[in-house]
């Protein structure tokens, strides 16, 4: 990963794995994020939860959306629950433009996502 680009922190809380990317998820940052997500997902148990906290992501483009869709597909395959939270207005807008805001489980805050 670039020094400057996206940084990704993940931690486990109960049955939830929380992934917190910080930075833009665009064509420059998405590949590293995707490969880290794959590694994290491969360790998830059926019935577990993956919470992606997007509150520190000021910008996302279709490369980021593709990464989220891949994660959703993994969730179906491996029977874990995928929850997105903390979308800034700019990021929320791109989910809406791509008609994906009703396809994902999207919560307001991390607390709401963990309570879901």
């Amino acid at each position, binding site marked *: 990963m*670039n020094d400057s*680009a996206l940084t990704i922190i993940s931690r486990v809380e109960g049955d939830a794995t929380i992934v917190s990317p910080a930075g*833009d998820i*665009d*064509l*420059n940052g998405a590949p590293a994020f995707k490969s880290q997500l794959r590694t994290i997902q491969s360790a998830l148990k059926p019935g577990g939860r993956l919470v992606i906290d997007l509150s520190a992501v000021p*910008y996302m*483009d*279709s*490369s980021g*959306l*593709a*990464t989220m*869709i*891949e994660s*959703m*597909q993994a969730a179906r395959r491996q029977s874990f629950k995928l929850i997105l939270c903390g979308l800034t*207005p*700019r990021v929320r*807008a*791109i989910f809406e*433009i*791509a*008609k*994906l805001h009703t*396809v994902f489980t999207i919560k307001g805050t991390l607390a709401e996502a963990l309570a879901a």
Partner: protein
Amino acid sequence: MSAEQPHVRLEILSNPLLNCGAREMVASMSRRMGFAEDAACQIALAVDEALCNIERHGYDRQTDRPIWLSLHAIGGLAQNGTSSSPTEGLKIVIEDEAQQIDPNLIKSRPLDEIRPGGLGVHIIREVMDEVIYEQRPNSGMRLTMIKMRNPQPKKDNGAPP
């Protein structure tokens, strides 16, 4: 469409690392021209998606090829001290020297099938008022996009519903 000179010309290499600068430049200038925050973000998104497509499809991920972007403020730019923005819309032209493809092949897919990829062209057509892909006379492609500040009811751009 106006035949006037652009107010801004940008040339960047086809490295995705540089896309952030191009899109933030366009967002920032759009705001100053009087576009609302959401519209400025939409314009930036369309520019970014267009650059991504040139980098991935046109140049097949080569990172050292040129991409040209020009901005023309339709209606002109406010001069310092004037009371409101005369800018009616923004015309953005993005050109490359990449492989040429039939503009009719650049189209968005139906969105009801949820899968990664195939969203860029949909996004561009959704957020901009006019979108024209064409081959440049000698090499490469040209994408012309227009967004008006107070858009007319949207024309059909030939995108599938």
